[in-house]
């Protein structure tokens, strides 16, 4: 069991938990007229800005035309750090080994579209957290997903304390993009009510999570408990939720199953409730059908849609109310829109209600859904799922020369280095309609289609993607549309396709993958993290039969020897693996420069492996080789140019191909240069 022992919040309502509590009981929202950038001609002039940045000018006129160059004087880590420091100090964690203190940070746009993992590292450095540092970017589900992943890191023993949350600033381009998509309201966001449309906001929220035993040992204040979570892909559309609501329903059911809860026992739901016509109607239909007796409300009338931080801030608002025996209201409700909740706690102030079991729902662009199960429940005893073996059933790699065959993978031995742009892949031959896919989406979808080989049913196959930045082509198209036509001409499709998780969404749609999905980064080595997290998911959960762990890189012009492409490894849950299959035996994650810690965890109980594959640098790599190890030590950068996400995943595919070809029985895969260090051991299963 994992508990929340600290919380911190920064939003349009103010700075700090107390300010948020006060605003809730005053019935106040934080929505105002936007002054920091020009909104003439756009669908709304309202935003939910953090008051701390009032009076500052966001960009110069020239920079404002250039999406990538519009580096505002608003470093998003400033917002994040205020909330993170409050959460951390209120948790009062002392005497923790910094290497066992982790962070999982969710964001849509990072530091003005350019830095993602770097923001996470700044927060971690400021708080002296030297454990795993993971960035989640599943658009507006990012921070909900981050809290779930933080819980996993604690339960699986990868850390002893984790701070999790998210942050996003209100930037001009997403505002214009939302305007082009026709989802902004000219009035204050009124979830489930009229007029439809959302209000964008900014802010940051963090929670500190610990295992219950550790928290009670030090008599820590417990705000709430996290019981489980679910992730799913709609596989439907970039920006519109699946009209059937099946995507959100799957995430909800999987969260309930993870918590061991019955849907009828849910007391309260903090809805995503963006205020848009499609979201509210579809979300309400799912809630009404699945959780008939639950109270429902949405917080975007208070704080706007805080993008990557929406989930965690809405959770925090709800938990503040639960402590006082209440649930938060839905502001600005003037009667239900057709097909929407008729009483979403329509009030200006919190309403009394006892909440034992609650859900926080998030449904994001790219069709990524995340649902968190939290509350005070101490009665439920959930039977753990018997851990399963995880086998590797396929791999696909797309690089500068297009799709790599097995012989190409075996030839990745350092004698030749692949560098440069990808020249293309034949998607038609893979049965994929690639006409409306940008470069990142094409490469990822091709690698995933090659890896999948149609073994597990697509609808129960998940997709974990390593991506360290926004897709270059779509970002540039979005920038170009603003440059040519002004903010009112922002390309809706390019905007929707430039999210970090857009390639994952496109791949889910193209291949019909409806299982758990996430998009993650630790910068260098991200691909290996995706493999490790997918393997762990399959070994301890039964809501997916397979997960494709992929990675994609599109050159952005900021690095030497940039290498474009994607790689993907197909993993499958196998209760009884056949002898001779390649399995993921174990894995470990540690902080920056913590490769030895990660390897120690991955190698536990093992004396040596037949090969060590390193993305980064590991001077004493031979230490982990068995005597006469046939595969020796291979450095990924000897055969693959700069590709922060893809290289370690392509390295894994190269190692797997060697084991499949009988060149060895086991291999240790290590990524040493990212925000986290990752080590994974793969081996051939033996006959029983």
């Amino acid at each position: 069991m994992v508990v929340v022992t600290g919380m911190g919040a920064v939003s349009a309502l103010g700075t700090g938990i107390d300010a948020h509590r006060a605003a809730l009981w005053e019935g106040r929202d934080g929505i105002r007229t936007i002054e920091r950038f020009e909104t003439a001609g756009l669908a709304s002039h309202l935003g939910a800005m953090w008051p701390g940045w009032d009076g500052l000018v966001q960009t110069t006129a020239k920079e404002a035309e250039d999406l990538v160059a519009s580096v505002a004087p608003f470093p998003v880590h400033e917002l994040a750090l205020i909330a993170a420091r409050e959460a951390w100090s209120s948790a009062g964690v002392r005497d923790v080994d910094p290497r066992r203190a982790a962070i999982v940070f969710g964001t849509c746009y990072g530091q003005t579209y350019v830095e993602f993992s770097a923001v996470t590292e700044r927060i971690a450095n400021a708080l002296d957290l030297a454990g795993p540092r993971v960035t989640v970017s599943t658009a507006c589900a990012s921070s909900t997903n981050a809290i779930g992943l933080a819980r996993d890191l604690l339960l699986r023993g990868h850390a002893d304390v984790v701070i999790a949350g998210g942050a996003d600033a209100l930037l001009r381009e997403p505002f214009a993009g939302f305007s082009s998509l026709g989802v902004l309201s000219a009035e204050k966001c009124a979830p489930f009510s009229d007029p439809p449309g959302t209000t964008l906001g900014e802010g940051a929220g963090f929670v500190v999570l610990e295992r219950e035993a550790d928290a009670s040992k030090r008599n820590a204040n417990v705000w709430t408990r996290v019981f489980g979570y679910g992730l799913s892909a709609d596989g439907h559309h970039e920006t519109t939720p699946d009209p059937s609501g099946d995507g959100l329903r799957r995430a909800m059911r999987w969260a309930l199953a993870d918590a061991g809860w019955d849907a009828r026992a849910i007391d309260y739901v903090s809805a995503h409730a963006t205020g848009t016509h499609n979201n509210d109607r579809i979300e309400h239909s799912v809630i009404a059908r699945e959780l008939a007796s639950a109270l429902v409300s949405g917080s975007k009338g208070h704080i706007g849609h805080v993008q990557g931080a929406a989930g965690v801030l809405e959770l925090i608002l709800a938990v503040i109310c639960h402590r006082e025996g209440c649930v938060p209201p839905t502001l600005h409700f003037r009667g239900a829109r057709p097909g929407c909740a008729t009483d979403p706690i329509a009030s200006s102030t919190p309403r009394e209600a006892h909440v034992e079991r609650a859900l926080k729902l998030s449904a994001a662009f790219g069709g990524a859904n995340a649902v968190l199960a939290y509350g005070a429940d101490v009665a439920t005893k959930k039977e753990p799922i018997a851990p399963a073996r995880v086998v590797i059933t396929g791999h696909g790699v797309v690089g500068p020369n297009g799709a790599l065959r097995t012989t190409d993978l075996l030839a990745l031995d350092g004698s030749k280095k692949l560098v440069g742009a990808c020249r293309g892949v034949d998607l038609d031959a893979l049965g994929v309609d690639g006409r409306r896919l940008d470069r990142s989406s094409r490469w990822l979808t091709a690698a995933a289609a090659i890896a999948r080989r149609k073994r597990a049913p697509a609808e129960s196959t998940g997709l974990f993607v390593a991506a360290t930045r926004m897709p270059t082509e779509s970002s540039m198209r979005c920038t170009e549309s603003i440059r040519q036509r002004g903010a009112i001409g922002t390309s809706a499709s390019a905007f929707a396709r430039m999210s970090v998780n857009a390639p994952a969404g496109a791949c889910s749609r193209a291949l019909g993958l409806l299982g758990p999905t996430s998009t993650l980064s630790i910068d260098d080595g991200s691909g290996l993290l995706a493999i490790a997290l997918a393997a762990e998911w399959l070994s301890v959960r039964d809501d997916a039969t397979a997960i494709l762990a992929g990675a994609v890189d599109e050159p952005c012009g900021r690095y030497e020897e940039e290498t474009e492409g994607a790689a993907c490894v197909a993993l499958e849950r196998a209760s009884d693996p056949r002898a001779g299959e390649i399995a993921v035996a174990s894995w470990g994650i540690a902080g920056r420069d913590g490769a030895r810690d990660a390897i120690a965890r991955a190698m536990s109980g093992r004396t040596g492996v037949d090969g060590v594959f390193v993305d980064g640098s590991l001077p004493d790599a031979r230490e982990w080789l068995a005597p006469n190890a046939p595969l020796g030590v291979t450095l990924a950068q000897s055969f693959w140019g700069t590709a922060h996400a893809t290289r370690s995943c392509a390295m894994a595919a190269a190692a797997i191909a060697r084991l499949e070809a009988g060149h060895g029985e086991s291999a240790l895969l290590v990524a040493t240069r990212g925000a986290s260090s990752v080590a994974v051991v793969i081996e051939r299963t033996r006959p029983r």
Partner: protein
Amino acid sequence: MNDDVPEDLALYLERRERALAEVRKLLASIIDFSGDAEDIDPDASLFGAGLGLDSLDAVEILIGLEIDLGIKLEGDDPMRLGLRNVNGVVDAVMRARGELQ
């Protein structure tokens, strides 16, 4: 232009060619068409098997018509606006300009 063609028809055809060129240019920019914009078939359907556009691209078409061609269509559903194929967009452009007979 053929001398046998009546003058008003010639004018109509000229305007239609101009509108088609503008629409092709707009569509080519939306779909990132690598070939010559003139290769876009006027009878090609916008969605599904034709150009393969999706609903986000439909939003782009409406924005492009408004900003690049100065034509504001009332409503936001391309199907209801008759924008099923390339010629449908050309019709809409000409109708808005009062050029459709």
